[in-house]
């Protein structure tokens, strides 16, 4: 398992690739992606008429394709891209291509260690998934969501399990969609299925369902919670457990339930986007205390401050004590930590990250077309042409920056206290 502790955390600046040169060399250069450890930068490039490949740190993959898109680095820094040759699609991983070919592939997913790579597939107008080049045996009428457990051993999808002819609203009411886990469909079918989620170990499966026109429920391991609700949102498993939590709409408003029973006393106009603390004891969510206002609630307590536009991407500190989130008010993006807003705002801001000891929060912001690093509400006066989200070192004293400056892609580790 790749551990970010093993990355090179020595304070240093390294030029990895000449991005400007890549831009000049090829007639088409698409969007750049970088690996988590910052050691690689990749981009699809056009190498000839109808001929594309991946360019990684300035080097081309040997193979050429009619199309190559959606390059994504896995957690182990292997690059997977969707590639087409002779009208057939498959996945290329670090330049090698899966033997199995399809009419279409998309939605690449990685296990937590990057060891397993999966995609959704289409062949003969039937849908399925393929993991590490091995397709499932069964195919389905349609597949819309696809989840891999952290260890990659379990795969769950939402699939259409019954034929539905045009405008057949009655069969639809009877239920045509269900869950497929490791290529085995569950017996039950529902009007709608959404938000399938797996426990960390892949042993438990949860999802939202619509059981009737106006009735919504939560299903855990194939069993519907006894209570039916006016609406529900994405459930999530408490880390390391098989306990399922979900926001559900009750007569008094949205409530947070765990395994079918309420765990928060408060009721809100809206609750969604559950995030668990690393120690699994705490949970926070985005809530609307009143119409048109939104904020974060942590363990049943909403922050006093509320926002008009958006709150999202909450994150707990590694010690589970603090919470930071992205906010937007009056179309200005910022960060709020434990209910205290940063004094700066941006045209755009990215998901914040805590230092290991929880004392500092770092985030990437964009202003007037340039990118900046901000720490604890202070913006470092160093603009970048391109910048990926900063990553804190395991000891919390340093930060890994991945950026393009002067046409060069650089990886730089620097002490946090130098960002001023």
């Amino acid at each position, binding site marked *: 398992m790749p551990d970010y502790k093993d990355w090179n955390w020595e304070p240093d600046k390294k030029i990895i690739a000449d991005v400007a040169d890549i831009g000049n060399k090829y007639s088409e250069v698409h969007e750049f992606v970088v690996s988590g450890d910052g050691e690689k930068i990749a981009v699809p490039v056009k190498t000839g008429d109808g001929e594309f490949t991946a360019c990684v740190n300035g080097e081309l993959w040997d193979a050429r394709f009619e199309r190559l*898109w959606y390059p994504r680095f896995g957690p182990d820094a292997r690059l997977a891209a969707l590639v087409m040759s002779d009208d057939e699609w498959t996945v290329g991983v670090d330049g090698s291509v899966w033997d199995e070919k399809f009419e279409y592939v998309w939605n690449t997913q990685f296990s937590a260690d990057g060891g397993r790579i999966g995609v959704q597939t289409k062949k003969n107008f039937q849908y399925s998934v393929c993991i590490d080049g091995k397709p499932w045996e069964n195919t389905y009428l349609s597949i819309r969501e696809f989840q891999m457990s952290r260890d990659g051993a379990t795969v769950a999808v939402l699939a259409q399990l019954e034929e539905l002819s045009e*405008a057949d609203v009655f069969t639809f009411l009877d239920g045509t969609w269900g869950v497929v886990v490791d290529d085995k469909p569950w017996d039950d079918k529902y009007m709608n299925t959404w938000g399938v989620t797996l426990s960390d170990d892949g042993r438990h499966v949860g999802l939202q369902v619509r059981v009737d*026109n106006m009735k919504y429920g939560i299903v855990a391991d194939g069993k519907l919670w006894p209570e039916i609700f006016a609406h529900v949102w994405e459930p999530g498993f408490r880390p390391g457990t098989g306990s399922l939590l979900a926001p559900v709409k009750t007569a008094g408003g949205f409530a947070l339930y765990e395994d079918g029973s309420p765990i928060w006393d408060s009721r809100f106009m809206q609750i969604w986007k559950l995030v668990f603390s690393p120690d699994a004891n705490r949970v926070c969510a985005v809530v609307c205390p009143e*119409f048109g206002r*939104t904020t974060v609630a942590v363990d049943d307590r909403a922050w006093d401050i509320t926002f008009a536009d958006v709150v999202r991407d909450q994150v707990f500190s590694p010690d589970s004590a603090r919470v930071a989130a992205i906010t937007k008010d009056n179309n200005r993006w910022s960060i709020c930590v434990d209910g205290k807003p940063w004094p700066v705002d941006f045209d755009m801001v990215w998901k914040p990250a805590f230092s290991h000891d929880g004392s500092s929060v770092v985030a990437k912001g964009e202003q007037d077309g340039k990118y900046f690093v901000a720490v604890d509400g202070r913006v470092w006066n160093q603009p970048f042409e391109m910048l990926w989200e900063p990553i804190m070192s395991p000891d919390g004293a340093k930060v890994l920056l991945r950026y393009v400056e002067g046409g060069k892609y650089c990886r730089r580790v620097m002490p946090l206290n130098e960002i001023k």
Partner: protein
Amino acid sequence: MKYEPRPEVKDDGLDESIKKLTPEKIKETIRFALDKECGARLKVYMDTCVHCGLCATACHQCISHDMDPKYAPVAKVKDTLVEIFKKDCKVSPEFMKLAARIAYIECGGCRRCSMYCPFGIDIAYLLMVVRRICSMLGVVPMYLQDTTNSHSVTYNQMWVQQDEWIDTLQWQEEDAQKVVKTARIPLEKEGADIMYSVIAPEPKILAQLLANAAVIFAVAGLDWTMPATDGWDNSNMAMYSGDFESSGRLERLHHETAMRLKVKKIVMGECGHAFRGAVYDGPRHIGQAYPAVPVIHAIEFYHDLITSGKIKIVKKFKKPVTVQDPCNTVRGRGLGGKLRDLMNWLCEDFRDMNPRFEHNYCCGAGGGVINCGPPWTRNRVVANRTKGDQINATGAEVVVTPCHNCHSGIEDIIKEYAPGTHVKFISELLVDEGCMEIPEHLRPGGD
């Protein structure tokens, strides 16, 4: 004034669905909707109406039926909600079938009548309450329900599979490159300025509009993206069928997708109801007063591109042209002036409709009416002779319709009342008719 019985129309979504209803179920559902979901607004409107009938002359359906009183807006409320109140919600399944027909077919929620009511009563809202009740009871025209079902499963209105969406964008990118060699449809480009969103008929049946968009973005030199995930369809028929849960779910994903891609705004293609869904009705279904991400309609977008010089108009379209004011962008959001600017910039012989701007009549297709499908096409065309008369009076050969519902609805209307006339989107004038400059160096083979 004329009175004719309603023509028989078979629609299983109404005929079959009511067979499952009991008076008790109906009463319980209506009570819930009225008591738990409708507040003072409903009561004030119901108490304020003085039954003066001034709204009758505002409704294209009433005018097109020679002022048949049952099509008067006030009559539509009287035959549905007033009756429900009078009977203390004890109404029959047959009553619900008629109520559904009135609310879904005989009113498109265009809101023209509220402008002619001395009290500004929002009759479209009242009939939307009826739709909500019908949706809760499962009594919805079959094709509209199917569209809503598609939204609930796929987050788009035409059951477009995820791969079909991406694949279509990829081949439309190739088509766009035949016009502008640098044209791209950048998929999943995190941090682009703009997410461009469209409605499902574009990838399904009007894919060239996607290529047109790619050409416009390329010439204007904008930083844009489209998602390769669900959340690309900005349309929302659930908002019109009365399934507000699905409506909220759609709008949430549309805006969530834009936020995931870190764009600063959403530019949407030429569709009116989608604008209403994304900007002012949809957010309310999830407890938000505003859209999470600012949304710019194509009319504003093109206007801005031309005034800022990002695209240049080098040729005017020669044929006589008129324009339909989509209710949800013009009456709903005041974009009529910008629309007129575009017409004058792009057309040599622009002939405005009468009445126009926010007073223009609805196309008769919006509000989910066209989505009620083939059983109701004839009905819809008959109910909007007014639009045919308006178009004919202009003498135009082309009707510009910056909205998908207007486009399809007016296509049906001109077939019946103004043969030889054609409909066009603005992007077709810009790209296909060559009104917009494609600089030489951007053309295939150009330097």
